[in-house]
């Protein structure tokens, strides 16, 4: 009798497995994206069965293009495979797959920041010839020229741009209205608003920024310096981390710390979204690709309390806003064994006009004038932000330099290192890379 009683537990567990297994009906059958569509994707398929591995992180802005590509270009013999992966994972796998003579991935998502370095190391296939061949068929000339330039290096095109992302401020309209606050246009206004919210006892840490000690935090520092018209290196390749602008930017970031969660250096963008969803923060600044999630009722009960504004400036007289303009696109790695024209066709179909239209409002496509105030809740904010962003400094050393200075930056932000010591260390770390 005793033994029978304790057989019950495994039986219950097996029943649970059965129920959960039933949810598996139709495994792998859909991509489930409201912003993806099916487009024509005509290429010459190779003999036999082929798998095309696509590397792209998941976000509400990238997924429409990835899902369009996967659903439109797969046939019986050619399968496009896209494993879900977070942004950190994509960074890791990009470096890993480009490291040797053979790689795992055939189409990789890249962005303006890493293109110079990868192009310099000859890790990406230049796309000019394929572009000329297929531009008319896929209406590629309608892709914004400045964005194509952003995906080029040394006169050659290395990625097909699919969308742009820029910093956008998201804030709680209800909290701001109650306290008579306006969306902040400078860091000082952010602090004033945060003070007011704190005094009113509404939230303890009203500001949330993605400062995770990976690419997130160094991008934020770069954005702060950009607001002052500077960057980690100057246009002629000189490392500029010991300049007054570098110091001012760092101090501006530190001035926001009292109004942010003490564990802010563990926040990536999904976690910052989480702060907004949970009502623990009233304003955040993230890439535009993360804005659409905030408006979906499925994600939180506060979905109609969010408003959007362009990114603020560091100070009222700063030339640009606290902003990074990132262009996302598709590239072909040098070590793929598949036919490059076929891969280019797949990429081109994913950035076609139909696909780009469908991706709004989740994304800000690279085709001109697709996003307006009407068709996107954050459209006005995004357009304002694009206009106020600093044109990027192009340097093949930036990506590596950023990796070197990042640990030092984190130490300063955590209060373990003084600003001056931190700047000096970052300067010498940067000089080691840039030579």
């Amino acid at each position, binding site marked *: 009798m*005793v033994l029978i009683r*304790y057989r019950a*537990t495994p039986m219950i567990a097996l029943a649970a497995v059965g129920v959960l297994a039933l949810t598996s009906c139709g495994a792998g059958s859909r991509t489930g994206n409201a912003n993806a569509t099916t487009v024509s994707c005509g290429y010459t398929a190779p003999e036999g069965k082929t798998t095309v591995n696509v590397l792209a992180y998941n976000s509400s802005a990238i997924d429409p293009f990835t899902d369009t590509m996967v659903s439109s270009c797969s046939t019986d013999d050619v399968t496009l495979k896209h494993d879900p992966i977070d942004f950190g994972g994509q*960074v*890791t796998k*990009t*470096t*890993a797959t*480009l*490291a*040797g*003579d053979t790689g795992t991935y055939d189409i990789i998502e890249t962005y303006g920041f890493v293109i110079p370095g990868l192009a310099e190391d000859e890790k990406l296939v230049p796309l000019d010839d394929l572009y000329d061949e297929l531009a008319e068929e896929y209406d590629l000339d309608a892709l914004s020229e400045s964005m194509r330039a952003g995906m080029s290096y040394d006169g050659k095109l290395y990625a097909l741009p699919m969308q742009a992302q820029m910093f956008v401020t998201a804030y709680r309209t209800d909290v701001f209205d109650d306290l008579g606050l306006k969306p902040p246009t400078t860091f000082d206004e952010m602090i004033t608003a945060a003070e007011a919210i704190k005094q009113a006892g509404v939230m303890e840490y009203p500001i949330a920024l993605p400062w*995770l*000690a990976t690419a997130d935090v160094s991008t934020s520092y770069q954005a702060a310096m950009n607001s002052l018209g500077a960057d980690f290196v100057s246009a002629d390749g000189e490392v500029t981390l010991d300049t007054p602008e570098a110091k001012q930017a760092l101090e501006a970031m530190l001035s926001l710390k009292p109004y942010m*969660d*003490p*564990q802010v*250096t*563990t*926040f990536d963008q999904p*976690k910052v979204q*989480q*702060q907004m969803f*949970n009502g*623990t923060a009233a304003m955040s600044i993230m890439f535009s690709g993360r804005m659409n999630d905030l408006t979906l009722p499925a994600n939180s009960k506060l979905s109609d309390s969010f408003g959007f504004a362009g990114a603020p400036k560091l100070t009222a007289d700063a030339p640009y806003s606290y902003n990074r303009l990132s262009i996302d696109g598709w590239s072909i790695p040098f070590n793929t064994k598949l036919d490059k024209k076929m891969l280019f066709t797949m990429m081109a179909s994913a950035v076609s006009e139909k696909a780009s239209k469908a991706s709004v409002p989740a994304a800000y496509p690279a085709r001109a004038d697709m996003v307006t105030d009407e068709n996107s809740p954050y459209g006005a904010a995004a357009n304002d932000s694009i206009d106020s962003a600093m044109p990027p400094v192009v340097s093949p050393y930036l990506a590596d330099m950023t990796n070197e200075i990042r*640990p030092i930056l*984190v*130490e300063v932000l*955590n209060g373990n290192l003084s600003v001056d010591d931190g700047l000096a260390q970052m300067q010498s770390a940067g000089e080691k890379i840039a030579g």
Partner: protein
Amino acid sequence: MKTREFWVLFFPSLLVMGALLVLPLVRTVQWSFEQVRYGVPGEFVGLANFVEALTDVRFGRAVLFTVSVTVVTTIILLVGGYIIATAVNRLTITRPLVLGIMLVSYVLPNLVGAVAFSWLFDDSFGGLANRIIEAFTGNQVLWFTDQVPNGILVIANTVWSMIPFAMLIILAGLQGVPSELKEAARIDGASSFQTHLHVIIPTIRGVLGFVTLITIMDVLRMFDNLIPLSPQAQSIGNESIMLYVYSVAFADGAQRLGLGSAINVLTILLILIMLIPFIRGIFKEAKAER
């Protein structure tokens, strides 16, 4: 048994272990003296990798963290495992149920258990455990950005996943304590606590030694659970040795194989040194039994 028969039976295993365990180890030792990347023959640099590893502050912190966690975990596992085993020893009918429940954390993959653990302490995910602890202590504890709380979190997770193992082994040992010994102690007027301390524990010395040994060996190699529990490991000084090797020789396409291999070799030496007392004990017993 004839020698030929022995080798026929033993050969497949020997082949697999030789090719897949011994050869890679030899390769690691070879790489530790070279500057080398994957797929490319390396160049000999003598002891440069070892010097770099030993003078690297980050390596020192990794060793300190790993050894501290190992020591604390071992002590908690021995004491906690003993107490729980004693309690479970009294159960009769409910024993299979309790053992089954306790075993869950041991059979779960470490990574999965650590992810579930981290959700309990993360405010972004509702963090129930964090709320309860803050309610009790009145303080805000930063589990992921402060070194000591994060260390406690890692230790808690390691103990959580290994205590079933410790408890089971000690339970087996407790069952082997002759009841006459315990009776004799009680007749002599010993209290319960004294019985435990002076009669039972010395009798199960060997079992406790075994638990200590396995715990030390397993915790020194910790890696899986740090991925979700300590995303800031490097900056707060809570990297384990294995995590350090991973970030130096593999993560993000890092290819400093020479340095990574040197650290591996140093770790092997460290582990061998820690194992020496146990190895000596084993051989002494084997000789005694002969």
